[in-house]
């Protein structure tokens, strides 16, 4: 609590108040909410961590983590296509996904180096474009150019993959390891450790040579060139790392859900992750691992309880639902507006 107050952030404060109010109004059992939040924590945690490095490198929120999610889905679809299952093949999926995300991350990095100063909007567009390409491949390419090995996942017309692919071979494969029970609360210890390990990993990277270079580029952009660093290369590295982490995060997400919504599962990952990070007290120029961890808990608490709270409060469940989608988008909008105020202190206009 003390720590929270010291790093007072209006967005976080609003979230704390909102979550607690909604929790009280919803009348949901705290145990259930707790369980749900733990599930959300391991399901979405890694994805949020993927945002930290690009922010440190001064590129703002990376909405192109969608591309990382797409890489993960490609890996999973291939695994289903080859009818693989089990832990070993999960490792294989990771290798495929990571390899793909390194490649795509490099391309995104090249794009962002051209669009300096407006990276965020560019990453949104890159996400859209990547989605179309992905759909093109799996809706049209599969069955025409690419021959599927597993006819079960194809549509009956023979071209394109089904909307929903069942991943029973991977469902909760990781979540079921080392599950502890405290009364009604279930703690999947292994996955919790995995998320913490990833968090530590990101934190570690920020304290390495590379991490130091990220923050140097983030603080003063091209000026570090005079110090013998190549800001372009460093920014590309930041995006590659982000994409790779996003890919891993999405694999965890999907194996937890156990079903793959082939064409749409990746679509909102960026918005929710960004909103969660900002809720945790990060800004578009400064983010720490603790913001991410705290943000997931806070944001998802609100997400879990708000529909029920909406119903109890307004007597209309749809309003709670609208409120929830407002929270996701609104958090980002508010954070962008508030942050701008902070950066206003610097001299603005051309006479810097």
């Amino acid at each position, binding site marked *: 609590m003390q720590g929270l107050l010291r790093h007072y952030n209006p967005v976080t404060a609003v979230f704390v108040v909102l979550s607690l109010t909604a929790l009280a109004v919803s009348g949901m059992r705290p145990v259930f909410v707790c369980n749900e939040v733990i599930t959300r924590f391991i399901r979405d945690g890694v994805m949020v961590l993927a945002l930290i490095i690009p922010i440190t490198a001064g590129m703002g929120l990376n909405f192109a983590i969608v591309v990382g999610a797409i890489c993960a889905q490609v890996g999973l679809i291939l695994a289903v296509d080859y009818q693989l299952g089990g832990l070993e093949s999960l490792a294989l999926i990771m290798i495929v996904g990571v390899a793909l995300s390194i490649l795509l991350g490099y391309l995104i990095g090249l794009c962002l180096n051209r669009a300096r100063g407006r990276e965020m909007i560019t990453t949104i567009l890159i996400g859209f474009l990547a989605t179309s390409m992905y759909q093109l491949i799996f809706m049209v390419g599969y069955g025409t150019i690419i021959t599927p090995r597993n006819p079960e996942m194809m549509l009956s017309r023979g071209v394109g993959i089904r909307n929903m692919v069942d991943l029973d071979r991977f469902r909760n494969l990781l979540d079921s390891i080392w599950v502890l029970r405290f009364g009604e609360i279930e703690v999947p210890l292994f996955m919790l450790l995995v998320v913490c390990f990833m968090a530590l990993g990101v934190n570690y990277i920020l304290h390495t040579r590379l991490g130091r270079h990220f923050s140097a580029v983030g*603080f003063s952009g091209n000026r570090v060139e*005079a110090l013998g660093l190549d800001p372009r290369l460093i920014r590309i590295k930041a995006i590659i790392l982000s994409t790779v982490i996003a890919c891993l995060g999405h694999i965890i997400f999907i194996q937890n859900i156990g079903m793959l919504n082939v064409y749409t599962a990746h679509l909102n990952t960026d918005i929710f992750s960004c909103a969660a990070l900002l809720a945790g007290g990060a800004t578009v120029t400064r983010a720490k691992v603790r913001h991410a961890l705290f943000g997931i808990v806070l944001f998802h608490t609100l997400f879990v309880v708000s529909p029920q709270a909406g119903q109890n409060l307004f007597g209309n469940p749809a309003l709670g639902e609208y409120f929830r989608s407002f929270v996701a988008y609104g958090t980002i909008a508010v954070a962008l507006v508030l942050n701008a105020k902070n950066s206003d202190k610097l001299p603005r206009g051309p006479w810097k």
Partner: protein
Amino acid sequence: MLELRGISKTFGPHSALSEVSLSIAAGEIHGLIGLNGSGKSTLLHILFGSSFIHETGGYNGSCFLDGKPFRFTSPAQAIAAGIGMVHQEFALIPEMTVAENILLSREKGFALTDTLFPRDFSLLDPRKNDHEARRALEYLDLKIDPRQKTGNLALNIRQFIEIAREISRDNLRLLLLDEPTAVLNTADAGNFLATLRHLADKGVAILFTSHRLPEIRGLCDRLTILREGRTVGCCDVRTASLGAITHLMLRESVTKAGRFRSRPTDDPILTIRDFQVAMAGEELLGLDLDVQRGEILGLISLSGHGKLAFGAGVIGQLPFRGSLQLDGATNPPSSSAAMIARGVFFLSEDRNRLGLLPRHSIMDNIAFSALQHDNRFLHPSLPRCLRLPDRRAIRRHGERCIREFDIRCTGPAQPVGELSGGNQQKVRIAHALTLSPRLMVVNEPTRGVDIAAKERILDMFLAINDRAGTTIVIASSELEELRRVCDRIAVLYQGRLHAILEPTADDLLFSRAISGKPVLH
């Protein structure tokens, strides 16, 4: 050790360096002096491989290090070759600590992670880094905590940190210093110069640019003088006199008689007292000055001493402290709009960014402010609320200005961005005059302008002043042009008024005044 042959560099149509040659031996301290805009910094950036040199089309000529030719395209290559550079605008990251800044790109990691992981992924050892930074600082006799944020430190300390970073490189062989002493006080400067001497004794070659003639004379072995991108002299410091060097720097001699008018009346249009403007690198720290109605006043100083901040403060581009009286009214509202409404206009020195609307036509540029502020050129047959401009009147006015000021162009509809620097400058002055200001402040009116256009522009000032009685303040680093047009010339030093001289005063007197020596009347 280092040799440069025939270096030329152009930025677009404007030539920054032409055929500069230079050589430095190991352990030599070589001075590079010249006025602002004479190409000193550009030369250093070429040596250091700065990317903007590469992006604006590279340079001609050849460089040799130990007889081997080189052509760096990034600072990383230069650093690898043992070249270090201390930048005029600091290359420090204010949000990072002193130690982080000093050791950036040379951080020390833990031995364990160094061996386990690739270099980039090794965990940094804060203790080792602190130690390393402290050692570098001690070399400069600087006792500060390497763990504090650089942004909180005083300007001169930051300068030392920057220097500490460069000289703590193990492989340093050639050190490029761009105005390193501009922000240091005399004691610090002395300390710093001693360090340089020590460094040179160890065999490091140093290329040093400065405005401060005395310290250059005290420190350097040889020096090269640049003027307008050309080498105008290269001499041994011991044999050349201060006067001769100043002479070379400014211009050989002024033969044309300055315009000399009777002493201006004591009727100040603008009075400023204790005028302070925080313009980065050009601070005014308390200027007291009266600008008399109807005069042309010159402002001269070496760069960094505040002449450019005067106009920016008066017009309200930057906030000022102190008092400002325009026509006797104290502290008029300091916004550009209000000042323009009161008949003050300012032409900034930054022609590229704050000069013009490059994609607009000549006539639109000329009519812009008059249209916005004076409601001139509006269509006479339309009601005022429609505010549609009268294209014919604008064109007519544009054509008249083109004729009158001899703007070389294809016609009034040509975009200004296509014009040469001199003609752009004429358009700007025409734009200002369209507003018929009572007081005009012009910064560096002839920088980057060819000779013919320069004459034309100076004539314009005289004509305006004669005809309309416009008061003009010209801030320039070119003494010669000021002497030709001004009634009085104010010399600034360290952000304050140092002396006011007559344009006919002796060259030597000017040299002394500009370099901060007391001037006896």
